[in-house]
Protein backbone atom coordinates (compact mmCIF):
# COMPACT_ATOMS: atom_id res chain seq x y z
CA UNK A 1 0.00 0.00 0.00
CA UNK A 2 1.19 3.50 -0.83
CA UNK A 3 1.53 6.20 1.81
CA UNK A 4 2.50 9.80 1.70
CA UNK A 5 4.60 11.06 4.58
CA UNK A 6 5.78 14.47 5.66
CA UNK A 7 8.88 14.37 7.80
CA UNK A 8 10.61 17.24 9.49
CA UNK A 9 14.28 16.60 10.23
CA UNK A 10 17.35 18.44 11.39
CA UNK A 11 19.12 20.29 8.60
CA UNK A 12 22.06 17.90 8.26
CA UNK A 13 22.66 15.57 5.39
CA UNK A 14 23.37 12.70 7.78
CA UNK A 15 19.84 13.10 9.15
CA UNK A 16 18.49 12.36 5.68
CA UNK A 17 20.78 9.36 5.28
CA UNK A 18 19.67 8.10 8.64
CA UNK A 19 15.95 8.14 8.00
CA UNK A 20 16.26 6.85 4.43
CA UNK A 21 18.19 3.90 5.81
CA UNK A 22 15.33 3.20 8.18
CA UNK A 23 12.79 3.40 5.35
CA UNK A 24 14.70 0.77 3.36
CA UNK A 25 15.58 -1.47 6.29
CA UNK A 26 12.02 -1.60 7.63
CA UNK A 27 10.78 -2.84 4.28
CA UNK A 28 9.41 0.23 2.50
CA UNK A 29 10.32 1.21 -1.02
CA UNK A 30 10.68 4.82 -1.98
CA UNK A 31 8.48 6.06 -4.82
CA UNK A 32 8.98 9.77 -4.53
CA UNK A 33 11.11 12.13 -2.45
CA UNK A 34 11.19 15.89 -2.16
CA UNK A 35 13.45 17.81 0.12
CA UNK A 36 13.33 21.46 1.03
CA UNK A 37 15.32 23.58 3.46
CA UNK A 38 13.33 26.07 5.50
CA UNK A 39 15.19 27.95 8.22
CA UNK A 40 17.22 25.34 10.07
CA UNK A 41 15.16 22.32 9.06
CA UNK A 42 14.66 19.92 6.20
CA UNK A 43 11.08 19.35 5.18
CA UNK A 44 10.71 16.03 3.43
CA UNK A 45 7.74 14.84 1.44
CA UNK A 46 7.88 11.25 0.39
CA UNK A 47 5.74 8.44 -0.94
CA UNK A 48 6.55 4.94 0.19
CA UNK A 49 5.13 1.56 -0.69
CA UNK A 50 5.00 -1.68 1.26
CA UNK A 51 2.84 -4.66 2.24
CA UNK A 52 3.64 -3.85 5.82
CA UNK A 53 1.44 -1.62 7.97
CA UNK A 54 2.66 1.98 7.91
CA UNK A 55 2.90 2.31 11.71
CA UNK A 56 5.91 -0.02 11.52
CA UNK A 57 7.69 2.78 9.68
CA UNK A 58 6.27 5.92 11.26
CA UNK A 59 7.03 4.76 14.79
CA UNK A 60 10.61 3.89 13.84
CA UNK A 61 11.11 7.25 12.14
CA UNK A 62 9.61 9.12 15.08
CA UNK A 63 12.23 7.55 17.35
CA UNK A 64 15.19 9.05 15.49
CA UNK A 65 16.88 11.84 17.38
CA UNK A 66 17.14 14.04 14.26
CA UNK A 67 13.50 13.64 13.30
CA UNK A 68 11.27 16.34 14.75
CA UNK A 69 7.94 15.31 13.32
CA UNK A 70 6.35 12.60 11.21
CA UNK A 71 3.02 13.20 9.56
CA UNK A 72 1.04 10.65 7.60
CA UNK A 73 -0.59 12.70 4.86
CA UNK A 74 -3.62 10.65 3.86
CA UNK A 75 -4.84 10.05 7.35
CA UNK A 76 -3.97 13.52 8.65
CA UNK A 77 -2.58 11.69 11.59
CA UNK A 78 0.14 13.46 13.50
CA UNK A 79 2.68 12.18 15.89
CA UNK A 80 4.29 15.02 17.72
CA UNK A 81 7.55 14.02 19.29
Amino acid sequence: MKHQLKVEVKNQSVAVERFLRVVRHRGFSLLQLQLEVVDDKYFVNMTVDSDRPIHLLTLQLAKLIDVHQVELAEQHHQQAI
Partner: protein
Amino acid sequence: MTGAELLIELLAKHGVKDVFGYPGGAIMPIYDALYGAPVKHYLTRHEQAAGFSAIGYTRSTGKLGVCFATSGPGATNLVTAIADAMMDSIPLLAITGQVPTAAIGSDAFQEVDVLGISLAITKHSYLVERAEDLAEILQEAIHVATSGRPGPVLVDIPKDIQLAQVSFKPWLAADDYQPEVNLNEVAKANELLKEAKMPVAYVGGGVHAADAQKKLMAFLNETSMPAVSTLKALGSVLPDYEYDLGMLGMHGGQAANLAVQKCDLLVCIGARFDDRVTGNLSKFASNAKIIHLDIDAAEVGKRKPAEASLIADLHDSLPLLAHPQTDGSWLTHMKSMMVKHAWRYDYPGEKVFAPYLLNKLSQTMPSNGVVCCDVGQHQMWVAQHMKFNSPRNHLSSGGAGTMGFGLPAAIGVQVARPDDFVITVSGDGSIMMNIQELATIRRNNLPVKILVIDNQRLGMVRQWQQMFFEERYSETILSDNPDFVALAAVFGIKGQTITKASEVDDAIQALVDSKGPYILHACIDEQENVWPLVPPGAANDQMVTEVK
Protein backbone atom coordinates in the same frame (compact mmCIF):
# COMPACT_ATOMS: atom_id res chain seq x y z
CA MET B 1 41.65 23.47 27.45
CA THR B 2 41.93 21.25 24.38
CA GLY B 3 39.08 19.22 22.94
CA ALA B 4 40.77 16.08 24.23
CA GLU B 5 41.01 17.49 27.74
CA LEU B 6 37.41 18.57 27.61
CA LEU B 7 36.33 15.02 26.78
CA ILE B 8 38.16 13.57 29.76
CA GLU B 9 36.91 16.28 32.09
CA LEU B 10 33.34 15.79 30.93
CA LEU B 11 33.52 12.05 31.47
CA ALA B 12 34.87 12.62 34.98
CA LYS B 13 32.04 15.10 35.60
CA HIS B 14 29.53 12.43 34.62
CA GLY B 15 31.01 10.04 37.16
CA VAL B 16 32.86 7.91 34.62
CA LYS B 17 35.81 6.44 36.51
CA ASP B 18 36.92 3.80 34.03
CA VAL B 19 37.11 3.57 30.25
CA PHE B 20 38.29 0.81 27.91
CA GLY B 21 40.13 1.27 24.68
CA TYR B 22 43.09 1.06 22.36
CA PRO B 23 45.21 3.96 21.06
CA GLY B 24 46.31 4.93 17.56
CA GLY B 25 47.31 7.91 15.45
CA ALA B 26 44.02 9.74 15.12
CA ILE B 27 43.16 9.48 18.82
CA MET B 28 46.60 10.33 20.23
CA PRO B 29 45.60 13.71 21.68
CA ILE B 30 42.88 11.98 23.72
CA TYR B 31 45.37 9.39 24.99
CA ASP B 32 47.70 12.23 25.87
CA ALA B 33 44.93 13.86 27.89
CA LEU B 34 44.34 10.53 29.67
CA TYR B 35 47.92 10.47 30.88
CA GLY B 36 47.71 11.07 34.64
CA ALA B 37 43.98 11.93 34.42
CA PRO B 38 41.45 10.92 37.10
CA VAL B 39 39.69 8.67 34.58
CA LYS B 40 41.39 5.28 34.49
CA HIS B 41 41.92 3.69 31.10
CA TYR B 42 42.06 -0.08 30.64
CA LEU B 43 44.01 -1.18 27.62
CA THR B 44 42.31 -4.19 26.05
CA ARG B 45 44.06 -6.15 23.32
CA HIS B 46 41.43 -5.63 20.65
CA GLU B 47 38.93 -2.80 20.22
CA GLN B 48 36.02 -5.26 20.07
CA ALA B 49 36.98 -6.36 23.57
CA ALA B 50 37.07 -2.72 24.73
CA GLY B 51 33.47 -2.42 23.56
CA PHE B 52 32.39 -5.60 25.35
CA SER B 53 34.23 -4.61 28.54
CA ALA B 54 32.39 -1.28 28.50
CA ILE B 55 29.13 -3.19 27.98
CA GLY B 56 29.94 -5.49 30.93
CA TYR B 57 30.76 -2.41 33.00
CA THR B 58 27.42 -0.73 32.33
CA ARG B 59 25.22 -3.84 32.39
CA SER B 60 26.50 -4.89 35.79
CA THR B 61 26.20 -1.47 37.44
CA GLY B 62 23.89 0.88 35.56
CA LYS B 63 26.81 3.31 35.10
CA LEU B 64 27.66 4.58 31.62
CA GLY B 65 30.07 2.33 29.68
CA VAL B 66 32.72 4.09 27.59
CA CYS B 67 35.13 2.78 24.95
CA PHE B 68 37.79 4.49 22.82
CA ALA B 69 39.26 3.54 19.47
CA THR B 70 41.33 5.17 16.80
CA SER B 71 40.13 5.91 13.26
CA GLY B 72 39.84 3.36 10.46
CA PRO B 73 40.53 -0.18 11.68
CA GLY B 74 40.23 0.84 15.33
CA ALA B 75 36.71 2.08 14.76
CA THR B 76 35.68 -0.84 12.53
CA ASN B 77 36.89 -3.24 15.23
CA LEU B 78 34.31 -1.66 17.55
CA VAL B 79 31.44 -2.35 15.17
CA THR B 80 30.40 -5.75 16.56
CA ALA B 81 30.33 -4.52 20.15
CA ILE B 82 28.30 -1.44 19.22
CA ALA B 83 25.83 -3.59 17.27
CA ASP B 84 25.58 -5.88 20.28
CA ALA B 85 24.75 -2.89 22.49
CA MET B 86 22.14 -1.75 19.97
CA MET B 87 20.36 -5.10 19.95
CA ASP B 88 20.33 -5.25 23.75
CA SER B 89 19.57 -1.52 24.40
CA ILE B 90 22.78 -0.88 26.33
CA PRO B 91 23.96 2.67 27.14
CA LEU B 92 27.39 2.60 25.55
CA LEU B 93 29.39 5.68 24.57
CA ALA B 94 31.90 4.96 21.80
CA ILE B 95 34.51 7.64 21.13
CA THR B 96 36.50 7.29 17.93
CA GLY B 97 39.38 9.36 16.66
CA GLN B 98 39.03 10.60 13.08
CA VAL B 99 41.53 12.01 10.59
CA PRO B 100 41.77 15.82 10.67
CA THR B 101 38.73 17.70 9.37
CA ALA B 102 40.56 18.92 6.25
CA ALA B 103 41.53 15.36 5.31
CA ILE B 104 38.02 13.88 5.61
CA GLY B 105 36.86 12.67 2.21
CA SER B 106 40.36 12.44 0.76
CA ASP B 107 40.89 8.72 1.51
CA ALA B 108 43.51 9.72 4.03
CA PHE B 109 45.54 7.13 5.91
CA GLN B 110 43.23 5.22 8.28
CA GLU B 111 40.23 7.17 7.14
CA VAL B 112 36.92 5.32 7.21
CA ASP B 113 33.47 6.92 7.06
CA VAL B 114 32.67 5.90 10.62
CA LEU B 115 29.56 8.08 10.78
CA GLY B 116 28.26 6.25 7.70
CA ILE B 117 29.02 2.86 9.25
CA SER B 118 27.42 3.88 12.52
CA LEU B 119 23.98 4.61 11.09
CA ALA B 120 22.71 1.05 11.26
CA ILE B 121 24.22 0.11 14.63
CA THR B 122 23.73 3.08 16.93
CA LYS B 123 20.83 4.82 18.62
CA HIS B 124 22.48 8.01 17.44
CA SER B 125 25.90 9.15 16.24
CA TYR B 126 27.87 12.33 15.61
CA LEU B 127 30.84 13.52 13.64
CA VAL B 128 32.12 16.64 15.36
CA GLU B 129 32.64 19.21 12.61
CA ARG B 130 33.42 22.32 14.65
CA ALA B 131 35.43 22.54 17.85
CA GLU B 132 32.87 24.84 19.44
CA ASP B 133 30.22 22.07 19.14
CA LEU B 134 32.24 19.45 21.00
CA ALA B 135 31.04 20.17 24.54
CA GLU B 136 27.40 20.18 23.56
CA ILE B 137 27.66 17.08 21.42
CA LEU B 138 29.35 15.06 24.15
CA GLN B 139 26.75 16.01 26.72
CA GLU B 140 23.91 15.33 24.35
CA ALA B 141 25.50 11.98 23.44
CA ILE B 142 25.60 10.87 27.06
CA HIS B 143 22.00 11.98 27.51
CA VAL B 144 20.79 10.12 24.42
CA ALA B 145 22.65 6.93 25.39
CA THR B 146 21.17 6.81 28.87
CA SER B 147 17.63 8.20 28.46
CA GLY B 148 14.42 6.64 27.15
CA ARG B 149 15.21 3.26 25.69
CA PRO B 150 18.98 3.23 26.20
CA GLY B 151 21.38 2.44 23.38
CA PRO B 152 24.86 2.97 22.00
CA VAL B 153 25.95 6.42 20.82
CA LEU B 154 29.10 7.08 18.82
CA VAL B 155 31.02 10.35 18.69
CA ASP B 156 33.67 10.59 15.96
CA ILE B 157 36.18 13.34 16.77
CA PRO B 158 38.68 14.55 14.15
CA LYS B 159 42.22 14.95 15.42
CA ASP B 160 42.34 18.72 14.86
CA ILE B 161 39.27 19.14 17.06
CA GLN B 162 40.89 17.06 19.79
CA LEU B 163 43.81 19.51 19.63
CA ALA B 164 41.78 22.73 19.28
CA GLN B 165 41.27 25.11 22.16
CA VAL B 166 37.68 24.81 23.36
CA SER B 167 35.64 25.97 26.27
CA PHE B 168 33.13 24.11 28.32
CA LYS B 169 29.51 24.96 27.67
CA PRO B 170 26.89 23.41 29.88
CA TRP B 171 24.17 21.72 27.90
CA LEU B 172 20.67 21.20 29.14
CA ALA B 173 18.48 18.51 27.68
CA ALA B 174 15.81 20.20 25.60
CA ASP B 175 12.33 19.55 26.87
CA ASP B 176 12.62 15.83 26.75
CA TYR B 177 9.74 13.91 25.33
CA GLN B 178 8.55 11.77 28.20
CA PRO B 179 5.82 9.41 27.13
CA GLU B 180 2.90 9.81 29.47
CA VAL B 181 0.82 6.85 30.42
CA ASN B 182 -2.50 6.92 28.60
CA LEU B 183 -5.15 6.51 31.28
CA ASN B 184 -7.66 4.98 28.86
CA GLU B 185 -5.15 2.26 28.17
CA VAL B 186 -4.60 1.78 31.90
CA ALA B 187 -8.35 1.34 32.38
CA LYS B 188 -8.46 -1.19 29.54
CA ALA B 189 -5.48 -3.05 30.99
CA ASN B 190 -7.03 -3.18 34.43
CA GLU B 191 -10.29 -4.49 33.03
CA LEU B 192 -8.33 -7.27 31.30
CA LEU B 193 -6.46 -8.04 34.50
CA LYS B 194 -9.69 -8.39 36.44
CA GLU B 195 -11.33 -10.62 33.82
CA ALA B 196 -8.33 -12.92 33.35
CA LYS B 197 -8.54 -16.45 34.70
CA MET B 198 -5.13 -17.65 33.52
CA PRO B 199 -2.72 -14.71 33.36
CA VAL B 200 1.04 -14.90 32.83
CA ALA B 201 3.63 -12.12 33.20
CA TYR B 202 6.16 -12.15 30.34
CA VAL B 203 9.19 -10.29 31.70
CA GLY B 204 11.86 -8.79 29.44
CA GLY B 205 15.09 -6.82 29.51
CA GLY B 206 13.17 -3.59 30.02
CA VAL B 207 13.03 -4.32 33.74
CA HIS B 208 16.82 -4.23 33.86
CA ALA B 209 17.02 -1.14 31.64
CA ALA B 210 14.50 0.72 33.81
CA ASP B 211 16.03 -0.64 37.02
CA ALA B 212 12.47 -1.59 37.95
CA GLN B 213 12.99 -4.94 39.68
CA LYS B 214 11.35 -3.73 42.92
CA LYS B 215 8.25 -2.52 41.09
CA LEU B 216 8.07 -5.79 39.17
CA MET B 217 8.33 -7.87 42.33
CA ALA B 218 5.69 -5.73 44.04
CA PHE B 219 3.29 -6.45 41.16
CA LEU B 220 4.10 -10.17 41.16
CA ASN B 221 3.92 -10.58 44.92
CA GLU B 222 0.56 -8.84 45.09
CA THR B 223 -0.98 -10.83 42.23
CA SER B 224 0.92 -14.15 42.54
CA MET B 225 0.89 -14.07 38.75
CA PRO B 226 3.07 -16.80 37.19
CA ALA B 227 6.10 -15.23 35.51
CA VAL B 228 8.23 -16.26 32.53
CA SER B 229 11.46 -14.49 31.60
CA THR B 230 13.37 -13.75 28.43
CA LEU B 231 17.12 -14.46 28.34
CA LYS B 232 17.81 -10.82 29.15
CA ALA B 233 15.30 -10.69 31.99
CA LEU B 234 16.84 -13.55 33.96
CA GLY B 235 17.47 -12.36 37.50
CA SER B 236 14.64 -9.80 37.38
CA VAL B 237 12.16 -12.23 38.93
CA LEU B 238 13.69 -13.12 42.28
CA PRO B 239 14.61 -16.81 42.56
CA ASP B 240 12.46 -17.39 45.63
CA TYR B 241 9.30 -16.17 43.87
CA GLU B 242 6.79 -18.99 44.15
CA TYR B 243 5.60 -18.84 40.54
CA ASP B 244 8.89 -18.20 38.74
CA LEU B 245 8.65 -20.42 35.67
CA GLY B 246 12.07 -19.41 34.31
CA MET B 247 12.97 -18.78 30.68
CA LEU B 248 10.52 -19.21 27.80
CA GLY B 249 11.20 -19.63 24.09
CA MET B 250 13.29 -21.84 21.87
CA HIS B 251 15.23 -23.34 24.79
CA GLY B 252 12.80 -22.36 27.50
CA GLY B 253 11.49 -24.72 30.13
CA GLN B 254 8.39 -26.78 29.41
CA ALA B 255 6.35 -25.25 32.24
CA ALA B 256 7.15 -21.72 30.97
CA ASN B 257 6.25 -22.43 27.35
CA LEU B 258 3.13 -24.44 28.13
CA ALA B 259 1.89 -21.76 30.54
CA VAL B 260 2.23 -19.07 27.88
CA GLN B 261 0.56 -21.21 25.22
CA LYS B 262 -2.40 -21.79 27.53
CA CYS B 263 -2.76 -18.40 29.23
CA ASP B 264 -5.71 -16.10 28.57
CA LEU B 265 -3.80 -12.91 29.39
CA LEU B 266 -0.15 -12.15 28.70
CA VAL B 267 1.26 -9.13 30.51
CA CYS B 268 4.36 -8.21 28.53
CA ILE B 269 6.66 -6.16 30.75
CA GLY B 270 9.55 -4.61 28.78
CA ALA B 271 9.86 -7.38 26.20
CA ARG B 272 9.53 -7.38 22.42
CA PHE B 273 8.17 -10.75 21.18
CA ASP B 274 11.55 -11.70 19.72
CA ASP B 275 11.43 -14.66 17.31
CA ARG B 276 13.58 -16.78 19.64
CA VAL B 277 10.93 -16.19 22.30
CA THR B 278 7.75 -16.68 20.28
CA GLY B 279 8.56 -19.54 17.93
CA ASN B 280 5.80 -19.59 15.33
CA LEU B 281 4.32 -16.15 15.99
CA SER B 282 0.81 -16.92 14.78
CA LYS B 283 0.62 -19.80 17.26
CA PHE B 284 2.23 -17.92 20.14
CA ALA B 285 -0.07 -17.41 23.13
CA SER B 286 -2.93 -17.57 20.67
CA ASN B 287 -5.62 -17.72 23.38
CA ALA B 288 -4.30 -14.66 25.17
CA LYS B 289 -5.18 -11.01 25.23
CA ILE B 290 -2.09 -8.86 25.55
CA ILE B 291 -1.13 -5.95 27.76
CA HIS B 292 2.15 -4.46 26.57
CA LEU B 293 4.30 -2.22 28.78
CA ASP B 294 7.30 -0.61 27.08
CA ILE B 295 9.03 2.75 26.91
CA ASP B 296 9.47 2.38 23.14
CA ALA B 297 6.21 2.93 21.24
CA ALA B 298 7.74 1.25 18.18
CA GLU B 299 7.85 -2.10 20.01
CA VAL B 300 4.12 -2.13 20.68
CA GLY B 301 2.29 -3.83 17.84
CA LYS B 302 5.57 -4.47 15.97
CA ARG B 303 5.27 -8.26 16.09
CA LYS B 304 1.98 -8.78 17.88
CA PRO B 305 -0.91 -6.39 18.50
CA ALA B 306 -1.83 -5.53 22.07
CA GLU B 307 -5.31 -5.04 23.54
CA ALA B 308 -3.88 -2.44 25.91
CA SER B 309 -0.54 -0.66 25.73
CA LEU B 310 1.22 1.37 28.41
CA ILE B 311 4.00 3.30 26.72
CA ALA B 312 6.11 4.71 29.52
CA ASP B 313 8.95 4.08 31.90
CA LEU B 314 8.15 0.88 33.81
CA HIS B 315 8.63 2.84 37.02
CA ASP B 316 5.59 4.88 36.10
CA SER B 317 3.46 2.26 34.38
CA LEU B 318 3.87 -0.82 36.59
CA PRO B 319 2.34 0.77 39.71
CA LEU B 320 -0.76 1.76 37.70
CA LEU B 321 -1.68 -1.84 37.01
CA ALA B 322 -4.44 -3.32 39.12
CA HIS B 323 -3.36 -6.34 41.10
CA PRO B 324 -6.18 -8.82 41.38
CA GLN B 325 -5.23 -12.08 43.04
CA THR B 326 -4.62 -14.77 40.44
CA ASP B 327 -7.17 -17.59 40.26
CA GLY B 328 -6.27 -20.43 42.64
CA SER B 329 -6.93 -23.26 40.18
CA TRP B 330 -4.52 -21.70 37.64
CA LEU B 331 -1.86 -21.44 40.32
CA THR B 332 -2.41 -25.04 41.37
CA HIS B 333 -2.04 -26.07 37.75
CA MET B 334 1.19 -24.04 37.51
CA LYS B 335 2.58 -25.72 40.61
CA SER B 336 1.92 -29.16 39.20
CA MET B 337 3.55 -28.19 35.89
CA MET B 338 6.61 -26.88 37.72
CA VAL B 339 6.95 -30.18 39.57
CA LYS B 340 6.23 -32.31 36.51
CA HIS B 341 8.74 -30.46 34.31
CA ALA B 342 11.43 -29.71 36.91
CA TRP B 343 15.01 -29.98 35.59
CA ARG B 344 16.68 -33.32 36.25
CA TYR B 345 20.31 -33.69 37.16
CA ASP B 346 20.48 -37.47 37.62
CA TYR B 347 22.66 -38.05 34.58
CA PRO B 348 23.51 -41.71 34.06
CA GLY B 349 26.97 -41.36 32.47
CA GLU B 350 30.40 -40.96 34.05
CA LYS B 351 31.19 -37.85 32.08
CA VAL B 352 30.70 -34.29 33.24
CA PHE B 353 27.05 -33.25 32.83
CA ALA B 354 27.04 -29.51 32.05
CA PRO B 355 23.59 -28.77 33.54
CA TYR B 356 24.67 -30.38 36.83
CA LEU B 357 27.99 -28.52 36.79
CA LEU B 358 26.30 -25.16 36.23
CA ASN B 359 23.65 -25.82 38.82
CA LYS B 360 26.43 -26.69 41.26
CA LEU B 361 28.28 -23.49 40.37
CA SER B 362 25.07 -21.52 40.93
CA GLN B 363 24.68 -22.99 44.41
CA THR B 364 28.35 -22.62 45.34
CA MET B 365 29.26 -19.14 44.11
CA PRO B 366 28.39 -16.04 46.17
CA SER B 367 24.79 -14.95 45.63
CA ASN B 368 25.91 -11.58 44.30
CA GLY B 369 28.33 -13.13 41.84
CA VAL B 370 28.15 -12.24 38.16
CA VAL B 371 28.08 -14.65 35.23
CA CYS B 372 29.06 -13.42 31.77
CA CYS B 373 28.14 -15.91 29.10
CA ASP B 374 29.37 -16.59 25.66
CA VAL B 375 27.11 -17.93 22.94
CA GLY B 376 26.06 -21.48 22.24
CA GLN B 377 24.78 -24.50 24.12
CA HIS B 378 26.65 -23.50 27.27
CA GLN B 379 24.83 -20.15 27.23
CA MET B 380 21.45 -21.89 27.17
CA TRP B 381 22.52 -24.25 29.98
CA VAL B 382 23.46 -21.23 32.09
CA ALA B 383 20.06 -19.68 31.41
CA GLN B 384 18.29 -22.92 32.33
CA HIS B 385 20.28 -24.13 35.31
CA MET B 386 21.61 -21.09 37.17
CA LYS B 387 19.66 -18.67 39.38
CA PHE B 388 20.29 -14.95 39.63
CA ASN B 389 18.96 -12.36 42.03
CA SER B 390 19.48 -9.42 39.70
CA PRO B 391 19.63 -8.94 35.93
CA ARG B 392 22.93 -7.18 36.64
CA ASN B 393 24.35 -10.55 37.61
CA HIS B 394 23.58 -12.42 34.39
CA LEU B 395 25.12 -10.90 31.28
CA SER B 396 24.45 -12.64 28.01
CA SER B 397 24.59 -11.32 24.48
CA GLY B 398 20.88 -11.60 23.77
CA GLY B 399 19.69 -9.90 20.61
CA ALA B 400 22.95 -10.25 18.72
CA GLY B 401 24.16 -13.55 20.19
CA THR B 402 27.79 -12.55 19.80
CA MET B 403 30.44 -15.20 20.42
CA GLY B 404 33.41 -13.61 22.15
CA PHE B 405 31.24 -11.51 24.46
CA GLY B 406 31.92 -13.36 27.69
CA LEU B 407 35.58 -12.85 28.57
CA PRO B 408 35.86 -9.10 27.84
CA ALA B 409 32.43 -8.48 29.42
CA ALA B 410 33.65 -10.23 32.59
CA ILE B 411 36.73 -7.99 32.60
CA GLY B 412 34.50 -4.91 32.47
CA VAL B 413 32.37 -6.27 35.31
CA GLN B 414 35.39 -7.02 37.46
CA VAL B 415 36.71 -3.49 36.95
CA ALA B 416 33.32 -2.04 37.95
CA ARG B 417 32.76 -4.42 40.86
CA PRO B 418 36.24 -5.30 42.11
CA ASP B 419 35.00 -7.07 45.24
CA ASP B 420 32.44 -9.31 43.58
CA PHE B 421 32.89 -12.82 42.22
CA VAL B 422 32.92 -12.61 38.42
CA ILE B 423 33.02 -15.58 36.06
CA THR B 424 32.71 -16.07 32.34
CA VAL B 425 31.06 -19.28 31.24
CA SER B 426 32.34 -19.94 27.75
CA GLY B 427 32.58 -22.65 25.13
CA ASP B 428 35.65 -24.03 23.41
CA GLY B 429 34.58 -22.12 20.29
CA SER B 430 33.62 -18.80 21.87
CA ILE B 431 36.59 -18.44 24.22
CA MET B 432 38.95 -18.28 21.24
CA MET B 433 37.14 -15.25 19.81
CA ASN B 434 38.61 -12.87 22.38
CA ILE B 435 41.28 -15.08 23.97
CA GLN B 436 43.80 -12.22 23.74
CA GLU B 437 42.00 -10.65 26.72
CA LEU B 438 43.83 -13.04 29.04
CA ALA B 439 46.55 -10.40 28.67
CA THR B 440 44.20 -7.74 30.07
CA ILE B 441 43.42 -9.96 33.06
CA ARG B 442 47.12 -10.40 33.69
CA ARG B 443 48.00 -6.74 33.17
CA ASN B 444 45.44 -5.62 35.76
CA ASN B 445 45.62 -8.62 38.12
CA LEU B 446 41.89 -9.14 37.81
CA PRO B 447 40.52 -12.19 39.67
CA VAL B 448 38.19 -13.12 36.80
CA LYS B 449 37.19 -16.80 36.75
CA ILE B 450 36.85 -18.70 33.49
CA LEU B 451 34.81 -21.83 32.95
CA VAL B 452 35.28 -23.41 29.52
CA ILE B 453 32.69 -26.05 28.73
CA ASP B 454 34.53 -28.05 26.12
CA ASN B 455 32.60 -30.32 23.78
CA GLN B 456 35.26 -30.04 21.06
CA ARG B 457 32.53 -28.66 18.89
CA LEU B 458 30.73 -25.53 17.84
CA GLY B 459 28.05 -27.32 19.77
CA MET B 460 24.97 -25.27 19.03
CA VAL B 461 25.61 -25.40 15.29
CA ARG B 462 26.48 -29.08 15.53
CA GLN B 463 23.14 -29.73 17.25
CA TRP B 464 21.31 -28.07 14.34
CA GLN B 465 23.36 -30.04 11.82
CA GLN B 466 22.40 -33.20 13.65
CA MET B 467 18.71 -32.32 13.79
CA PHE B 468 18.08 -30.38 10.60
CA PHE B 469 21.02 -30.98 8.21
CA GLU B 470 21.25 -34.78 8.11
CA GLU B 471 24.27 -34.99 10.40
CA ARG B 472 26.53 -33.32 7.87
CA TYR B 473 28.98 -31.82 10.35
CA SER B 474 30.39 -29.08 8.19
CA GLU B 475 33.18 -27.13 9.97
CA THR B 476 31.91 -27.61 13.52
CA ILE B 477 34.42 -30.15 14.82
CA LEU B 478 37.09 -28.65 17.09
CA SER B 479 38.93 -31.81 18.09
CA ASP B 480 42.21 -29.93 17.56
CA ASN B 481 41.51 -27.40 20.32
CA PRO B 482 44.53 -26.03 22.20
CA ASP B 483 45.22 -27.11 25.76
CA PHE B 484 43.23 -24.35 27.47
CA VAL B 485 44.85 -24.73 30.89
CA ALA B 486 48.32 -24.50 29.37
CA LEU B 487 47.22 -21.52 27.31
CA ALA B 488 45.98 -19.69 30.41
CA ALA B 489 49.18 -20.62 32.26
CA VAL B 490 51.16 -18.59 29.73
CA PHE B 491 49.29 -15.56 31.09
CA GLY B 492 49.98 -16.59 34.69
CA ILE B 493 46.48 -17.97 35.23
CA LYS B 494 46.10 -21.18 37.25
CA GLY B 495 43.51 -23.84 36.62
CA GLN B 496 42.64 -27.44 35.99
CA THR B 497 40.92 -29.78 33.56
CA ILE B 498 38.19 -32.19 34.56
CA THR B 499 36.63 -34.99 32.54
CA LYS B 500 34.54 -36.99 35.03
CA ALA B 501 31.29 -36.35 36.90
CA SER B 502 32.98 -37.39 40.13
CA GLU B 503 35.40 -34.45 39.86
CA VAL B 504 32.80 -31.72 39.50
CA ASP B 505 31.98 -30.82 43.10
CA ASP B 506 35.61 -30.41 44.20
CA ALA B 507 36.55 -28.55 41.04
CA ILE B 508 33.74 -26.03 41.48
CA GLN B 509 34.77 -25.51 45.10
CA ALA B 510 38.40 -24.95 44.07
CA LEU B 511 37.30 -22.46 41.42
CA VAL B 512 35.11 -20.50 43.83
CA ASP B 513 37.80 -20.54 46.54
CA SER B 514 40.61 -19.42 44.22
CA LYS B 515 41.92 -15.96 45.04
CA GLY B 516 43.19 -14.75 41.70
CA PRO B 517 42.09 -15.50 38.15
CA TYR B 518 41.36 -19.17 37.53
CA ILE B 519 40.35 -21.40 34.63
CA LEU B 520 38.26 -24.54 34.96
CA HIS B 521 38.32 -26.54 31.76
CA ALA B 522 35.43 -29.01 31.84
CA CYS B 523 35.34 -31.63 29.09
CA ILE B 524 31.88 -32.92 28.28
CA ASP B 525 30.42 -35.41 25.82
CA GLU B 526 30.46 -33.96 22.31
CA GLN B 527 27.00 -35.43 21.66
CA GLU B 528 25.21 -33.47 24.39
CA ASN B 529 22.32 -31.34 23.21
CA VAL B 530 20.27 -28.54 24.71
CA TRP B 531 16.74 -29.65 25.57
CA PRO B 532 13.99 -28.77 25.20
CA LEU B 533 14.17 -27.22 21.74
CA VAL B 534 11.38 -25.67 19.72
CA PRO B 535 12.26 -26.43 16.08
CA PRO B 536 12.21 -23.51 13.64
CA GLY B 537 8.68 -22.74 12.49
CA ALA B 538 7.05 -24.78 15.23
CA ALA B 539 4.78 -23.51 17.97
CA ASN B 540 6.22 -23.28 21.47
CA ASP B 541 4.22 -26.27 22.69
CA GLN B 542 5.94 -28.47 20.08
CA MET B 543 9.07 -28.86 22.21
CA VAL B 544 11.49 -31.62 21.26
CA THR B 545 13.45 -33.36 24.00
CA GLU B 546 15.51 -35.90 22.08
CA VAL B 547 16.96 -36.61 18.64
CA LYS B 548 14.50 -38.82 16.80
